């Protein structure tokens, strides 16, 4: 079995983090995990230390992309074969890790835990953004990604290294579309997701609109101009 690292980015998740990690370690002790505390202002880091969880504590807030990249750098440096993102709010259920890992071992580069592979995507305002991103990816790559905004994604070793070293590799749908265009194989696996256990979601209405505009412009326009460079190591490229 491949050595898997589960990266749990956590920003102000004191209400959920203990329950999420406890469930993971109790039911699935065979997987390694690391909590990346993204400069939380609440007791997230203190709770992790008190319970003895494996923790990377970022001294400043970097945002999801930075927190996740930290986890992937940890995975790359410590010889993991693959890594996945798991939200700290309890939406991602650990029972779907095994089928996703199986799909990755079939030879896929990226496996997405998808809510809408066999289930119909509801036609609600909340899902409008997901529809637009799906259409954009379909239009630019020809591939159907049913649940592009799902945060439950698993990456193989090559992807982990690429994500860990490069700029503009946020764990977002635009990176997925860019990688599909560059020949990465992406597979979706049907999963079920819960509601967040407690606390407020980061995505307010206005932030969702901003996110959508950014993703659409990025997928439809900007990704065409990117050049893939996996040869030059990061420190040798200057910004």
């Amino acid at each position, binding site marked *: 079995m491949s050595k898997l690292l589960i990266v749990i980015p956590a920003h102000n998740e004191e209400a959920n983090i203990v329950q999420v990690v406890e469930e993971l370690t109790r039911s699935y002790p065979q997987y390694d995990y690391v909590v990346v505390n993204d400069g939380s202002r609440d007791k997230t880091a203190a709770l992790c230390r008190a319970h003895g969880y494996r923790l990377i504590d970022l001294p400043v807030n970097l945002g999801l992309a930075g927190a996740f990249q930290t986890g992937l750098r940890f995975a790359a440096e410590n010889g993991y074969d693959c890594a996945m993102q798991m939200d700290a709010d309890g939406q991602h259920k650990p029972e779907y890790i095994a089928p996703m890992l199986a799909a990755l071992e079939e030879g896929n580069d990226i496996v997405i835990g998808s809510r809408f592979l066999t289930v119909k995507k509801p036609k609600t305002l909340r899902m409008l953004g997901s529809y637009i991103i799906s259409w954009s990816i379909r239009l630019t790559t020809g591939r159907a990604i049913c649940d592009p905004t799902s945060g439950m994604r698993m990456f193989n070793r090559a992807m982990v290294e690429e994500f860990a070293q490069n700029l*503009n590799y946020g764990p977002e749908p635009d990176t997925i579309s860019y990688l599909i265009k560059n020949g990465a194989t992406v597979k979706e696996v049907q999963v079920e997701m819960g509601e967040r256990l407690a606390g407020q979601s980061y995505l307010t209405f206005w932030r969702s609109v901003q996110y959508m505009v950014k993703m659409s412009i990025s997928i439809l*326009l900007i990704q065409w101009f990117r050049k893939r460079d996996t040869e030059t190591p990061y420190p040798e490229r200057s*910004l």
Partner: protein
Amino acid sequence: MFDQTLIRVCLILGSFITAGYILRRVRHAKVQIEDTIFWLMFSAALLILAIFPGIAYWAANLLGFMSPINFVYVVIIFLLLAKQFFMSIKLSQLDSKVRILTEQVALNEEKAERDKLDL
């Protein structure tokens, strides 16, 4: 006046140079994608104003400007001021992050040295 082709050609050129330059930076992975969105929208705005001068005529008339080109200037000044404002905020945040990081590094260093002395 504003329908002089030269001004419109300049606006179109400016728009394409802006977009071309920023997309080149993306191509070579020298800029983060979220920081390019503003410049792409800015160049789109210039392009629209150049292609449809009617917008400037209509808005100048509505706001009582002497000349439609003044409306174009106002739009550009407004966009750049707004950008400047948000950059100020971002810079201030970056400044405080660098400060916190430097403090953290120094504290870690001190701790490491103290541990070494204790041994």
